């Protein structure tokens, strides 16, 4: 079939808006899903007192972290295909932060798999460090990156980033980084409350209740600053500021929910908070995708950074067919691994473990169902 292109690109086509929304959703999904992976990694040493505790914590995300990280890869790929100039300017501009994020994700990813391969304490400790830093650095830098996208960075007429690494480390962006770092840590602590048992769960609950007020303060500060910036320059999506207020409210309520032992609802609240944070950023950004601090005329927008309409059409068809399928099987995998993870019972009769905790070590020696071997704790 002959598919021809419109010779002139209209100011905003529907498909450009659609792909802007898709990319926002991909980032929101990434923040919610890998957010708790990062949180678990950041809190690994605090919630895990010994090697076995840390193994338990890693196993709460073991089967799913890799699938969660794919949200980032798809967000990157979708940006490349739908908005090539956004992809090119962002990735070449934020060069060193991205390098740090990639290096962190490399060590963190292999750590999950390699950690269990040797029993040497030094080996275990080294990979625990890799998981901690590998989670902390991206958790901080994603916030720095998004705050800079919104705040504006020196972008030239040719969409080239003219700043240096240090331009990216301004107070607003650093506040953004602290905000995502705390949000992910809180999200991970609440996730640990839901997925672990006994002492680890108690410690996770305590950590979440300590983190909650600090996180609330950070998100209030960051979104207020964002609001003040936006009020001068650009008003989209922030008037009335329903979404940012919802973001703040859902984080503010976490501590109360935890005190009432509503862990599930607390997790919903941190997830909603993260989604609303990403939504605030993208609403405020629209229709821009990157802000030039040199001149508004050099902003990258969904119109001037977009790919050809034909490409967007093809991608839309593929996305509409396959996204529901992906959501179904990824959701199903969470259902399969819905049980809590706990330490094995002490030698002797397996008791004291909640009904949700499946077969303890005693039966693991028979080829009974369920037990996850320690060596396979790290996944791919």
């Amino acid at each position, binding site marked *: 079939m002959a*598919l021809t*292109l419109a010779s002139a690109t209209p100011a905003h086509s529907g498909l450009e808006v659609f792909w802007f929304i898709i990319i926002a959703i991909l980032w929101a999904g990434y923040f919610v899903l890998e957010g708790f992976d990062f949180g678990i990694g950041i809190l690994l040493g605090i919630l895990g007192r010994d090697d076995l505790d840390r*193994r338990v914590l890693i196993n709460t995300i*073991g*089967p*799913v972290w*890799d*699938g969660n*990280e794919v949200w*980032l*890869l*798809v967000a*990157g*790929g979708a940006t*490349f*295909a739908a908005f*090539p100039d956004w992809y*090119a300017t*962002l*990735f*070449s501009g934020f*060069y*060193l932060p*991205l*390098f740090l994020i990639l*290096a962190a*994700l490399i060590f963190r*990813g*292999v750590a*999950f*798999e*390699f950690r269990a*391969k040797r*029993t040497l304490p030094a080996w275990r400790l080294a990979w625990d460090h890799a998981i901690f830093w590998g989670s902390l650095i991206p958790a901080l830098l994603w916030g720095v990156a998004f705050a800079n996208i919104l705040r504006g960075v020196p972008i030239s007429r040719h969409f080239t980033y003219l700043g240096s690494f240090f331009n990216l480390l301004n107070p607003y962006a650093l506040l953004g980084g602290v905000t995502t770092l705390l949000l992910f840590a809180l999200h991970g602590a609440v996730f640990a409350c839901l997925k672990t048992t006994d002492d680890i769960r108690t410690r996770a609950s305590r950590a979440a209740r300590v983190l909650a007020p600090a996180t609330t303060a950070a998100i209030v500060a960051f979104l207020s600053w964002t609001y003040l910036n936006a009020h001068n320059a650009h008003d989209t999506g922030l008037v009335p500021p329903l979404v940012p207020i919802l973001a703040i409210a859902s984080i503010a309520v976490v501590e109360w929910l935890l005190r009432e032992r509503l862990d599930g609802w607390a997790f919903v609240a941190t997830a909603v908070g993260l989604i609303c944070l990403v939504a605030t950023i993208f609403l405020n950004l629209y229709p821009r995708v990157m802000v030039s601090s040199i001149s508004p005329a050099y902003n990258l927008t969904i119109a001037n950074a977009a790919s*050809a309409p*034909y*490409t967007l059409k*093809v*991608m839309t068809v*593929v996305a509409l067919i*396959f996204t529901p399928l992906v959501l179904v099987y990824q959701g199903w*995998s969470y259902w*399969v*691994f819905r049980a809590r*993870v706990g330490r094995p019972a002490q030698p002797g009769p397996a008791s004291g473990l909640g009904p949700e905790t*499946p077969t*303890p*070590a005693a039966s*693991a*020696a028979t*080829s009974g169902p*369920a037990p*996850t*071997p*320690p*060596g*396979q*704790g790290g*996944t*791919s």
Partner: protein
Amino acid sequence: MTLDLSRWQFGITTIFHFMFVPLTIGLALLLAIMQTAAYRTRDDVAAHEKWNHMTRFWRRLFLINFAIGVVTGIVQEFQFGMNWSLYSRYVGSVFGAPLAIEGLLAFFLESTFLGIWIFGKGRVSPRIHLASIWLVGVGTMLSALFILAANSWMQHPVGYKVVGNRAIMTNFWAVMTNSTLVGSFLHVLFSALVTSALLILGVSAWHLLKDRRAMEAPQPVFAASAKLALVVGSVAIVATMFFGDNQARVMERQQPMKMAAAEAIYNTQDGASFSLLTIGDLSGNPIFQIRLPHLLSVLADNSWNGPVQGINQIQAKDVAKSGPGSYKPILWVTYWTFRIMVGCGIVMLGLMAAGLWLMRRRRLERSTWFLRLSVLAIALPFVANTTGWIFTEMGRQPWVVYGLLKTSQAVSHIGAGYVVTTLVGFTAIYSLLAVIDFGLMTRYARCGDQADEPGTDHEREPGTDQAPALIY
């Protein structure tokens, strides 16, 4: 400076990534076959146990590799934007689409079902557990298909038009049915099977040799693994060569310079000979050559006296078409990488043939020389994979998208200092990972089957008796 550094970075990242990718693709399929055999023999205790042991043993090596393949894949996807942002702007509309679709169709499938496969035993039915490794295999193949569709478009752009300073996709179907893609996808797919088959053969051979030295009966797991690897490897090496040959013909039509450079054919000739060895001076003039008459014409044109274009004539044509400049790749690189790749292939073919013959004569487990060679041969597919990619990518130079965009026009405008930082950083990280991976692979490959207790699914570090500690 930025250009050269960026090229080194791309080369190092891609080669390192591709050390692990073929093993992931091939082992996923072979593990799926093993687990299927275990599933189908579940009424026959001995056979079931043997296949189960095989699945457990090779899965450990598979998982060690999978991890590095995944994390280096992220760098692979992001470096286009980081180091090659002008390329990304130019090609995003065409090249970005298969990349995005790869993520949606392949990466989600692989990662989700790998999680189910590793952690899900006992939580899902054996049938779904088996289906999940097949889905991992399908995911890895889909991933190869889409990334090779993107690469084939760089080799032979189709389904696009140039509007202003952008290449814009006009026909997605054409991109996915690119004549270059068919050959390269099957070539890569089968070479991945060869790679994993040779790893399995080599590691099994090492164990069989050890058993022989210890005067023990060969372990059935490794005898069976070696046989499976031989059968799969034989079919795969023949298929790899067949589709490689098919690619050569396509290449002669689409990128005549690469073919001429591969063969050091300086001037167009009919009934061209195949060069076995060329020593030339630095300006590219041959000093001494050994050639097999007519073979190149047969390979490239399927005829005894078919014409093969020469470097000098193609250079003149390219200048007329695309303006002044050199359109020659670095000749010694293309010439030697091509030869090393083909040479490794021929040696592997010979090894497989010898192995099949020994297997038929039932002497496989006792043939010390063959087993020793098989251990050494583990390196061959890796050398062939690497030289193959260096050949096909460097042979396309100076183009990044053949005939459309030169590599020098594709690189990001970033300071060389930044690129040096990341080049050193990534290289250091890859080197460290390579050492760790090699250490773990040899450690787990050597530990044999005793690390598993029959009937359980526990992994243990070789040489320790640490009990399984964790419950899901």
